[in-house]
């Protein structure tokens, strides 16, 4: 549906988007994720036509749109600020795109009514934007963007202005809507949880570059760069060096002294030192010996109660410092406290090599 080929965008000496290539499939919910200033919004604005790439090409539905004006593209955008027309009623806001397309009036009425019902705004059609709540405005913006039936819907942090509860509800609603319409959604956010919840695939951006593209699970479980590992979820990022190789497994010595084994095929070609990522919740912790591919003992230096989870700061016997997240024990089970000596376990599959040191 969308082909992005070697797209670069510079503003003066600043490179906002740096040589990005990306394909987005029809009906896909793709999220552009990254911190502010990473280039995700600029890429979205190039898709909508508000910015023109410095180099590279963009195709939407087989048609080259690199230099096509926004009003000639079959895409619509939901703006971060919603950008509702304050002088028009809800119905007129929604009908705007259809009027621009010179759709006959009866059809406009029918389609507007339809979408108003779809986004649960029945009864609000004759109000003006300033008479609506934030959530209602958000839905008007959504309705206005989908009613012209664009090939692609672009969403620029559409939920960022909503409070946490409403945002969670809207995430589900949006996902459901996207499935219902079968429309391609390109969604920009800096909120990794939002990205993980909603997306078919996530494209992680950092400093203008596409760091990693993959399903939510792939991005989470197999981060390919330290940035991705750190930005999505939480990670123990540790430098490690190979000390022995035995067939399919390679033995690593992690900073501080802990030794672990990973499958050899994950070891990058060349280089002797790497950075590995180990998710805190993947570290098994117990007061008794446990089963895992790698087992070591450690001392709990700190314990932070976080409701559902307990955050443990560990120091292994060899001196390596790690953070672990464990399910909060009920009173029935034995609790782990600061100062305790514990057994820890790690599975080789949970260790990701995220780059050379």
């Amino acid at each position, binding site marked *: 549906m969308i082909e992005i080929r070697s797209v670069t965008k510079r503003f003066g000496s600043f490179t906002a988007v740096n040589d990005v290539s990306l394909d987005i499939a029809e009906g896909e919910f793709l999220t552009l994720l990254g911190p502010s200033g990473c280039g995700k919004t600029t890429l979205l604005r190039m898709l909508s036509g508000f910015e023109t790439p410095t180099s590279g090409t963009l195709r939407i539905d087989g048609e080259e749109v690199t230099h096509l004006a*926004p009003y000639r593209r079959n895409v619509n955008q939901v703006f971060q600020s919603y950008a509702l027309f304050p002088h028009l009623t809800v119905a007129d806001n929604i009908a705007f795109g259809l009027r621009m397309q010179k759709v006959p009036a009866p059809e406009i009425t029918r389609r507007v009514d339809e979408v108003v019902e779809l986004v649960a705004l029945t009864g609000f059609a004759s109000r003006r934007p300033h008479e609506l709540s934030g959530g209602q405005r958000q*839905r008007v913006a959504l309705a206005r963007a989908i009613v012209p039936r664009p090939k692609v819907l672009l969403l620029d942090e559409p939920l960022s202005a909503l409070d946490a509860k409403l945002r969670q509800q809207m995430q589900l609603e949006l996902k459901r809507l996207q499935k219902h319409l079968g429309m391609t959604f390109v969604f920009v956010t800096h909120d990794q949880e939002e990205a993980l919840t909603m997306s078919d695939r996530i494209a992680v951006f950092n400093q203008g570059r596409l760091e990693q593209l993959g399903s939510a699970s792939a991005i989470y479980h197999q981060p390919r760069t330290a940035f991705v590992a750190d930005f999505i979820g939480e990670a123990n990022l540790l430098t490690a060096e190979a000390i022995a190789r035995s067939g399919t497994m390679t033995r690593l010595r992690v900073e501080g002294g802990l030794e672990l084994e990973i499958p050899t095929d994950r070891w990058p070609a060349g280089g002797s030192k790497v950075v590995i990522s180990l998710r805190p919740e993947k570290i098994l912790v117990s007061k008794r010996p446990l089963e895992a591919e790698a087992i070591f003992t450690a001392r709990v230096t700190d314990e932070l109660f976080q409701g559902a989870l307990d955050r443990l700061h560990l120091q292994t016997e060899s001196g390596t410092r790690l953070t672990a997240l464990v399910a909060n024990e009920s009173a029935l089970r034995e609790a782990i406290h600061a100062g305790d000596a514990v057994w820890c376990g790690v599975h080789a599959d949970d260790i990701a090599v995220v780059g050379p040191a």
Partner: protein
Amino acid sequence: MHALADTAPAHGGRRAGVVAWLLLAPLALWLLLFVVVPMAGLVVYSFCQRDDLGRVVYDFSWENYARVFDPIYLKILGRSIGYAALTTVICIVIGYPVAWYIARQRSPLRERLLLLVMIPFWTSFLIRTYAWIAILKSEGLLNGLLQFSGVVTAPLSLLYTPTAVVIGLVYAYLPFMILPIYGSAEKLDNALVEAAHDLGAGPIRAFSHVIIPLTWPGIAAGIMLVFVPAIGMFAITDLMGGAQVPLIGNVIQNQFFRARNAPFGAALGVVFTLLFILTYALAHRRRRATTA
């Protein structure tokens, strides 16, 4: 999404307290002293007569009003409205792009450009008008330039023509059009323009369907600030138009200082003011009707 049907913010009625009235008192006094009292004086004068020397005689009469509706003065009023309307239209056509351009600039440049718009106010209106005379006169700057560059062979007759009057009026009132439109344009969120483009509106329809309606308060304020004073203007017609075509401002000024007929001048002024209050009220009512 049905779960999200939250309510719109409520609009509560407010009541002004004593403090609010106290705060309003200086304004009320100001209005009383500089609007109500002079207007009342004008109304009283307009029903009076003048004596041999031009002194106002408090002798009630409708005569002045009967004279106001003489075709002579109606024609002058019509012409004044025509000139003011033309001035207003030209001010919009020139002022809108200028205001829009300034509003779209980044901060330091924007303030500097605004300053350029306001700089003419630092000199007296008369001096600026004389500067235009120096430019437009037959041995003036413009003719010199045109003749030097070979565009014309004989000097053009520019000064003391209706064109000169319109140039003078547009020049005098252009900032009053630019500034309010700038005020509206500056507040206009660029995302709205982008949203219009995004929904398929090309530059022209984005302008007519979104930009114009949203900057309309500025345009309307500009029209009020240009059109109304332009009708009453007399100095420019005298200085740049050679006092040839009388506008209503000239006639009123003439009644007070030359013909020494203050009551008739007052009657002209009252009718003129009423006409504007009426036009404004009608326009306002229509606006409220369309927004409701």
